[in-house]
């Protein structure tokens, strides 16, 4: 690619105003033929809005879009697709029980008079897959494919629609390290054949690994444009956040106690589809220690967490807390003993979204003094306590009576941390605490977790982000197919080695 290559996409002073916010303000970007650019920004910086404007989902308030030098106006994604735009959403838009071919032709089936010409369709899908070496079997069912391949089906879908510009929204969020590498190869092949690619991301590493140029968005505006070859990770982070950020929280040495306070012995869990999801798993956590569980999603993380919290029936095995078995206790009883839990899905399992901040903060302690007396909830103590937590944990909100559904993801997570950490638990189970959060929030949440370590909580951290595991954990356990397959000392290993065990190789 050279500077002289034709500009295929250009935006001129795009602004998008929503009733209360200016989501995009005077955005000017250019994209050349066969170029890969990244749009980097925190959550709420306006990346998705911009993409939705480009893809015809939103109409810009002001400004114009130029496609191959010609001014265009999309009134729907269909217009955008017809003009050669393709988009792969973070959450795939695939119909699981259908085959790859069926999914790809959905909406533009070839054939005549209502009869679909499957043979022709299948051949075209196969040809496309071969040309870009996507290695997709056109006949397999989407539900049988691993996530990485499902993503390629989405890419194939865009190519089938003759996309010349491909927009990928957080493409690596769901992938394993190995799959990420494969994806990057695919993207490079696409570029070499003249397709232009826009990647939306908040991961700095990714920007540098894949793209030629990067636009940094902050609060709806372009905060900078860089060639990835001549900028550092720190440059990008500072541009993105607007201040100097600490990329990896500094971790002080902290001596853990000798004796474990939390132990799991030979745990077996069978799910309701009769599959053994936790297989003879044993581990132990000492007070003042963070044990990180690394693994690819779907290897038993959810089930392990639910078994620890008493929400999943276990088949056999023991869970010991301070030497006493707790596996037969209810969730409530385990919490009362001093076990706290930050669940993966903050909106589904962590919060009651239509409830206020105050109500969420006392959720689970609503029947304890001083929050209730007899049957009646006590308004004053609840309000005082909530105000204190909101302040201590820096939850940005209008008032404690605001519904948590109105808060940003980072602030929602802070509400959960406030509730769980303020109980001063002796054992803390934290599952993917920074999922989908931006750099600033991650920094804060990591420092809070380390604070709990200093207070000598025993902490079990489940995360899909290796980076997170490496920056927090004192010991790393690799979970694969419901089993702990390997234990590492983080100072004596690297992400490549851990990644290998995560995918079952050794």
């Amino acid at each position, binding site marked *: 690619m050279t500077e002289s290559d034709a500009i295929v996409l250009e935006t001129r002073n795009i602004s998008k105003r929503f009733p209360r916010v200016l989501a995009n303000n005077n955005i000017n970007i250019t994209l050349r033929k066969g170029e890969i650019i990244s749009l980097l920004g925190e959550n709420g910086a306006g990346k998705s809005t911009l993409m939705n404007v480009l893809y015809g989902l939103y109409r810009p308030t002001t400004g114009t879009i130029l496609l191959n030098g010609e001014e265009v106006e999309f009134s729907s994604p269909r217009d955008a697709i017809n003009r050669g735009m393709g988009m792969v959403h973070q959450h795939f838009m695939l119909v699981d029980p259908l085959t790859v071919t069926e999914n790809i032709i959905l909406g533009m089936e070839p054939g005549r008079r209502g009869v679909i010409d499957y043979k022709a369709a299948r051949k075209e899908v196969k040809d496309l897959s071969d040309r870009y070496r996507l290695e997709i079997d056109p006949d397999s069912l989407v539900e049988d494919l691993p996530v990485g391949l499902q993503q390629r089906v989405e890419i194939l879908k865009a190519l089938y629609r003759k996309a010349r510009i491909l927009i990928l929204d957080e493409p690596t969020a769901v992938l394993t390290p190995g799959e990420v590498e494969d994806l990057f190869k695919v993207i490079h092949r696409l570029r070499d054949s003249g397709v232009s690619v826009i990647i939306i991301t908040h991961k700095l590493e990714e920007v540098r690994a894949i793209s030629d140029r990067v636009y940094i968005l902050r609060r709806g505006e372009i905060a900078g444009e860089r060639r990835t070859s001549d900028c550092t990770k720190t440059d990008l982070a500072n541009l993105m956040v607007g201040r100097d950020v600490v990329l990896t929280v500094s971790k002080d040495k902290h001596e853990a106690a000798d004796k474990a306070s939390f132990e799991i012995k030979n745990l077996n869990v069978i799910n309701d589809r009769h599959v053994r999801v936790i297989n003879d798993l044993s581990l132990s956590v000492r007070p003042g220690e963070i044990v990180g569980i690394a693994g690819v999603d779907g290897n038993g993380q959810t089930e392990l967490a639910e078994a620890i919290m008493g929400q999943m029936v276990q088949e056999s095995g023991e869970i010991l807390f301070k030497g006493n078995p707790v596996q037969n206790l209810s*969730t409530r009883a385990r919490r009362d003993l001093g076990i706290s839990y930050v*669940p993966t899905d903050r909106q589904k399992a962590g*919060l009651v979204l239509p409830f206020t901040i105050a109500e969420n903060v006392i959720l689970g302690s609503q*029947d304890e003094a001083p929050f209730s007396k007899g049957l*009646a909830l006590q308004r004053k103590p609840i309000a005082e306590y909530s105000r204190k937590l909101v302040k201590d944990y820096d939850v940005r909100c209008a008032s404690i009576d605001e519904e948590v559904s109105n808060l940003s993801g980072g602030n929602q997570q802070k509400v959960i941390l406030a509730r769980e950490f303020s109980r001063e638990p002796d054992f803390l189970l934290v599952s993917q605490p920074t999922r989908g959060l931006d750099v600033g929030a991650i920094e804060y949440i990591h420092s809070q977790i380390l604070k709990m370590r200093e207070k000598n909580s025993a902490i079990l951290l489940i995360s899909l982000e290796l980076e997170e595991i490496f920056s927090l954990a004192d010991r790393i356990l690799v979970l694969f197919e419901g089993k702990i397959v390997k234990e590492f000392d983080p100072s004596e290993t690297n992400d490549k080695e851990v990644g290998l065990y995560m995918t079952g190789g050794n």
Partner: protein
Amino acid sequence: MDKLLTGLKVIAGVVGVVFWAASQFWGILLVLLALGIHMVQNFSRMDREDAVKKLKDLGMSAFYPAVGILAAIVLGGLIMALTGYDPINAYKAMFYGGLVKNWHISLLNATPLIFTGLSIAVAFKAGLFNIGAEGQYYVGSMIATWLAIRFSLPLGLYILAIFILAGLAAAAYNIIPTWLKIRTGAHEVVTTMMFAHIATKYSTIFVRNNGGDPAVSKHAYVTDAIQEANELLPLKTIIPGANYRVHMGVLLALVTAIVIWYLLYKTKIGFEIRAVGANKTAARTQGINSGRAIMTAMLIAGFLCGISGTTQVLGLEHKMYENLNAGYGWNGISVALLAGNDPIGVIFAALLWGILDAGGQYMARTTQTPSAVVEIIKGIILFLILAKYLYFWFGHKLFKGRKKAAAGEAA
């Protein structure tokens, strides 16, 4: 000062409601006064911004019902005009009948609906659809009738006992469907509906066994009358001007609505019910026993339907009819939906339904307009309120159109 105001508010409210119920229309002035004091009290505690926001929220929550009702009245008028009736006259008769002439009938219609509406609302708050309210209503009616025919005690103690026993029986009627829901996930819409059919069909046998046998009784299809000592006092014992049919059950319904509001929003039981209803996973993750919360809600729901039937038997009918199917259970669903499952809103929704029914009958008698028009209006109201997405869509279109025009000017 604040306490004094609160006292004044409560007294004005209670006295106002009682007199209003007794067709003394100045009672409404006292009610408005109480509401005014309440607003002043609340807003004086907030700063300006919060107060404005709160007012806006209130306005918005009143907006959809208001639009729905207005639109339904206009559409109902159109239908009448198109089918050859005079909508102006018909509406005059309907509102005169429902609000003035037969106000007492409106109240009597609304009373059982308040209870059943509350029942549906409580279940909804726990995330369940108690579609079988009708069955629990019948269970309550039958137990109340059976007890009130046979026994009596002085001092109204027995009336209290009947209320409690009939309520408990109706609550117990929900145990099996709810247990199935918790244990196996069997959907409560199906199970409570089937249970409702069992109870309503069984009631015909019950009526025959309690004096309504067409073979031997001259009052076929009606049970024997309950003992006079078990009848609820009419309202005119405390307010001489009240219509003789209006009974204390009206006041009981209003008090119950307030109790349910308190229970849902100010107690830990209500907190747990709402938490489970809004997000069962999160509630369970926090150690809340979701099964217990659901069971509690369904027991309360059953109890409310039970006392609905009891109020109707002891207060108004004084016997049980086989074929008088007023459908208070089914209509309670509409009332709760209209009220957005808000206990206080249920009062107003039930009153609206009561007024439409009473007014509709009066309209039919005096203007020969079929009272089915009222059912059409009710249907349109519900449709327009439930389809509020329609407004968003419409508003969006309107907004977009305007913005486009503005953009055009700018360019």
